[in-house]
């Protein structure tokens, strides 16, 4: 009898652990250049559509999701072009990381339902508590014993079923009118940014369209140590696939060539095509490890010749980049103690210090790129004025090929004027459990900070 019982328990154990496996991404045997979730200029783009808006949503758990929600709400409440549309209608691309990816993905999937559903479906919820409950469920203990099922898979199930209604990238594609949503994670092996788009999945020989959006969002927000990495298969190359011209040119220039940064970008992507034997899997973690602001993807697209900023089909007058930066500065007490910080503090600092430093550098990077562009336009105009003044030949210098005004706005708690309120916001924790009052305050602050931005107000006077 005991033998039967033991055998039954063993079989049950094997069934429960053996069946537990993370959702595997699908292979794509044949490459199709126009297939899948890749950037295309908005279908409804017309000659009159002269405004190009890009949003970047940072990481920071619910704090970041609520701040970016506040910005979206403000854009929706901002009429432009004599009230014929709102600034939210003009958003072309949203690049997001970690907590900000929840807001971005939800808007991409459900559009304006964001403003009626999202608070209850995500912002007001104690997601951390619900995840902990799942962890304490004995059925999940067996599943977690499987080497192919981790804590992050429980989170994916929770997000998939209760936030994103099991929607996939195919659903995101079907929403042709919504902006392009670039959800960013970090490749643990290369340390580089991984953006959930079909071109990135083409390199893996995989089909993004049937992947649940929840899995991408979970990859983007898998904070180190608290959550495990999310794994993806790297399949044999799809028939007919070849690396893009940008990647090939980047590799051709070598590391010691004119652009080492582009070489590394190209190399880190190409190895998943050129050396599949060595890289049969890709493990992704929180996007904040490679860029906690979501701006690197925008900067790369501004720089790389295949980037979305070069694919616009009509001329524009205004390029608007709005960054939702939910960075905090909690009061530090480490220096008050003579003894070295404990292991938990060291682990936390190791995970976040470089993230914060890099975020600052990233915002400077995009700012510098835009300044160089503006400077070039001014240089041409200045030289032309000198020629016009001193030469009678009527010689005309070439004009800039793209001639538009750039507005860069960073929404950051450091810009809150009231010092007590600023300190309170800068002390908010990074978690998926904030009170309704905290969430509401963050939403209001997002709108207020946008409202008080000088650059934003100058923009509105031009496009009202």
């Amino acid at each position, binding site marked *: 009898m005991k033998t039967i019982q033991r055998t039954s328990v063993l079989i049950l154990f094997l069934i429960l652990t053996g069946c537990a496996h993370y959702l595997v991404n699908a292979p794509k045997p044949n490459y199709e250049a126009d297939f899948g979730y890749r950037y295309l*200029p908005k279908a409804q783009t017309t000659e009159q559509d002269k405004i190009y808006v890009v949003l970047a949503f940072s990481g920071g758990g619910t704090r970041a999701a609520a701040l970016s929600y506040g910005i979206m709400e403000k854009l929706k409440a901002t009429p432009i072009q004599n009230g014929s549309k709102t600034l939210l209608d003009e958003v072309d691309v949203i690049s997001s990381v970690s907590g900000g990816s929840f807001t971005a993905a939800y808007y991409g999937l459900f559009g304006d339902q964001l403003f009626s559903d999202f608070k209850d479906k995500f912002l007001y919820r104690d997601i951390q508590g619900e995840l902990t409950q799942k962890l304490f469920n004995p059925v999940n203990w067996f599943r977690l014993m499987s080497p192919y099922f981790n804590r992050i898979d429980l989170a994916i199930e929770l997000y998939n079923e209760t936030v994103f209604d099991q929607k996939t990238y195919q659903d995101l594609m079907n929403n042709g009118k919504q902006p392009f949503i670039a959800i960013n994670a970090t490749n643990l092996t290369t340390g580089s940014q991984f953006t959930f788009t079909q071109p990135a999945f083409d390199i893996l020989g995989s089909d993004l369209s049937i992947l649940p959006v929840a899995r991408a969002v979970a990859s983007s927000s898998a904070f180190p140590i608290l959550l495990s990495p999310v794994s993806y298969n790297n399949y044999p190359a799809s028939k007919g696939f070849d690396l893009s*011209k*940008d990647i090939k*040119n*980047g590799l*051709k*220039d070598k590391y010691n*060539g*004119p*652009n080492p940064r*582009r070489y590394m970008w190209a190399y880190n992507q190409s190895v998943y095509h050129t050396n599949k034997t060595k890289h049969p899997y890709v493990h992704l973690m929180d996007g904040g490890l490679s860029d906690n602001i979501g701006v690197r993807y925008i900067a790369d697209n501004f*720089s*790389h*010749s*295949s980037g979305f*900023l*070069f*694919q*616009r*089909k*009509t*001329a*524009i007058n205004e390029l608007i980049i709005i960054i939702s930066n939910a960075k905090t500065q909690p009061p530090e007490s480490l220096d008050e103690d003579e003894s070295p910080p404990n292991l938990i503090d060291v682990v936390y600092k190791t995970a976040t210090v470089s993230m914060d430093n890099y975020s600052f550098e990233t915002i400077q990077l995009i700012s510098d790129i835009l300044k*160089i*562009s503006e400077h*070039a*336009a001014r*240089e*041409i105009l200045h*030289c032309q004025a000198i020629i016009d003044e001193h030469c009678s030949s009527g010689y005309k*210098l*070439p*004009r*800039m*090929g*793209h001639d538009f005004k750039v507005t860069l706005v960073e929404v950051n708690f450091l810009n809150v004027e009231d010092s007590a309120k600023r300190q309170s916001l800068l002390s908010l924790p990074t978690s998926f459990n904030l009170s309704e009052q905290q969430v509401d305050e963050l939403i209001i602050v997002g709108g207020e900070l946008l409202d008080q931005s000088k650059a934003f107000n100058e923009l509105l006077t031009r496009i009202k």
Partner: protein
Amino acid sequence: MRFFWRLHTGGVIQLEAGTHTITLEKPKNFSPIEQDVNPSGTSPIQPHKIYFSKV
């Protein structure tokens, strides 16, 4: 590479350093169909010039 920014003929474009493959949008009635360039020492008023001929 495809440029859709409604570039005017003779317009200056800014690219990051390195090799770039330049082509034009349809109709493909020009030659060569694409060109690899690696400009250096350029400036907005002294750009690297790329020529396409209509065929």
